[in-house]
């Protein structure tokens, strides 16, 4: 009995090894949340599963709900050992671990979603949502009746603060009375607290709510239930959750970039670079909701077009919400500095620490 079992184990092991040795490319993706969440993780999962279908020879291995603790290093090592030649760590907290695994496996390409340094086999990429949020702010500024906009953020990192700032600057540009109230839940995915946070904002009189958490679903549904309006983030599919209150939203489209990356890896031409793309490339605007008038749509489209053509709202002089000069004249916040941004622009109600 024991021998039989051992034989089966060995045969199965050999069979797996053979399967992975076939031609093509194994892509390994690591997610901090669940891939069916209407949010950030789904945006990667959607792109990668389509690539798996469309590019011949591509096989996708995925690991969901991987915490940002020491364990992620062995998860990535496991992906490499199961044959992955392109690894995509999608959470900011995976950076250190990804760098270590990449240093051990020079023949494996790493494409890290976030910011950081690059090496020959380690590239970084991200969508510049902060500038695009300016267009979302325009939409919110036009649609609000109370002039109070709400913003729920999970973890107050530079990218989230930048999204809030872009949003407030856009709203202010078209509605000088607009304010953005920020509430922090403390985690990327604490659903019950997100629902409570959305309700707290509505209690404050906010009638338009946007968010930067892993999945916008809970907040959008909580806002919709009380007749508020929402501006989505992470995945444009979330509009299905708010048939009445949906205004518009930002989503990610990683497919073109990751397709290109996969092809390069297969052709042996991968070289790690820092790629930050904005509206029209990695960042896309969701369709408008039924309640959005044509003139508002036009204003949003105009703002979005300006951002896509290079308009950077993060240009000095800008004051922070405590009255200090946060960005001197002629200075701008570049894509590579956004992760470290640590102030709220004038008109935001909230505290950084």
């Amino acid at each position: 009995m024991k021998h039989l079992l051992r034989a089966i184990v060995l045969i199965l092991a050999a069979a797996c090894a053979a399967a992975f040795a076939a031609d093509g490319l194994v892509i390994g993706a690591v997610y901090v949340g669940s891939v069916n969440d209407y949010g950030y993780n789904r945006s990667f999962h959607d792109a990668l599963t389509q690539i798996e279908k469309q590019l011949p020879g591509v096989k996708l291995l995925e690991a969901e709900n991987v915490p940002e603790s020491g364990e992620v290093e062995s998860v990535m090592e496991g992906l490499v050992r199961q044959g992955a030649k392109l690894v995509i760590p999608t959470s900011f907290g995976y950076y250190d671990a990804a760098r270590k695994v990449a240093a051990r496996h020079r023949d494996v390409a790493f494409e890290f979603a976030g910011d950081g340094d690059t090496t020959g086999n380690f590239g970084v990429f991200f969508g510049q949502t902060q500038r695009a949020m300016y267009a979302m702010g325009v939409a919110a500024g036009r649609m609000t009746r109370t002039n109070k906009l709400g913003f729920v953020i999970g973890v107050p990192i530079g990218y989230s603060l930048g999204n809030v700032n872009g949003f407030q600057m856009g709203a202010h540009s078209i509605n000088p009375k607009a304010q953005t109230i920020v509430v922090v839940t403390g985690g990327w995915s604490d659903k019950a607290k997100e629902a409570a946070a959305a309700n707290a904002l509505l209690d404050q009189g906010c009638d338009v709510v946007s968010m930067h958490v892993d999945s916008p679903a809970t907040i959008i549904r909580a806002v919709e239930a009380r007749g508020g309006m929402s501006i989505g983030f992470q995945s444009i599919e979330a509009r299905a959750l708010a048939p009445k209150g949906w205004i518009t939203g930002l989503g990610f489209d990683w497919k073109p970039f990751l397709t290109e990356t996969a092809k390069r890896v297969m052709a042996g031409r991968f070289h790690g670079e820092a790629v930050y793309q904005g509206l029209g490339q990695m960042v896309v605007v969701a369709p408008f909701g039924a309640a959005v008038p044509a003139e508002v749509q036009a204003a949003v489209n105009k703002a979005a077009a300006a951002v896509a053509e290079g308009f950077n709202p993060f240009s000095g002089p800008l004051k922070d919400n405590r009255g200090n000069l946060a960005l001197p004249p002629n200075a701008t916040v570049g894509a590579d500095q956004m992760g470290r941004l640590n102030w709220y622009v004038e008109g935001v109600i909230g505290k950084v620490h």
Partner: protein
Amino acid sequence: MTTTPLIISLLAGAILSGTSLLYATLGETLVQRSGIVNLGLEGVLLVGASVGFALAAASGNAWLGLGAAALAGAATNLLFGWLVVTRKANQLASGLVMMFFGFGVSALVGAPYIGAVIAGLPKWRPSWLADLDWVKATTLFNYDILTWLAVPVALAVWWALFRTRWGLGVRAVGENPAVAYASGRDPARFQYVVLLLGGLLGGLAGAQLSLSLTLTWAEYMTAGRGFIAIALVIFSKWHPLRAIAGALLFGGAEALELQLEARGSLISPFVLQMSPYLFTIAVLLAWGGARRLAAPASLGRTFYGST
């Protein structure tokens, strides 16, 4: 819409966040009154939330989900009961095992339904209340059955524990199972019944999170609320009516944190997030020795007499 007074928002937020805590606390209070500590409450909540959501999503009927959540919570607790009552295993270790079990089962059951859209339990607000301005601007009184029944259920638990022969039996078992046994009561039977009821309530607590508050399922979505409920049991001195105040206070602490932020408070969110835990310890301290009088005397101990 205008800014709602802080106190009104706090009340609304406290009820919103406190309802699931109340159900969970009531369930655990019942269980602890019979002398059993269930550290696995977090797992019961998760199983309730996930099974309830899965059934609601699969059938399109939130009521079905609600029933399934309660039954799933009860089943989880009965499994725990088999360990600690029948097999007389250590309660704390068994509780943690049930927590891990809940993590696993809820993830497996919920996985196919992540991202599913459900309607949730229907809400109802009396029309004479709906016209008041300060009600209109908040979630106050716009509740589904779980929220409306939370306080009545607490009253029912109180009545059952303190005004019935059965409740006397439960408390007798919790105080001294040997004496209870000697006077003709079967401790194991009382404990199983109490675990069943506690599990039903724990399952409802989980369902409140997935079917009412968030309308979503996500792994670990209870985020420690099961443990807060265990602290609340002690905080409310094992008393169902004080549990109402306790749940409101704890729910209110979360609401206060969010409201202060939304009003541009200068207090660090980290300090605010710690406050409920430190507050509980402070209260326990303030009660000091008197607290022990309220605790079931045989809490956490294994009774061997009935085998």
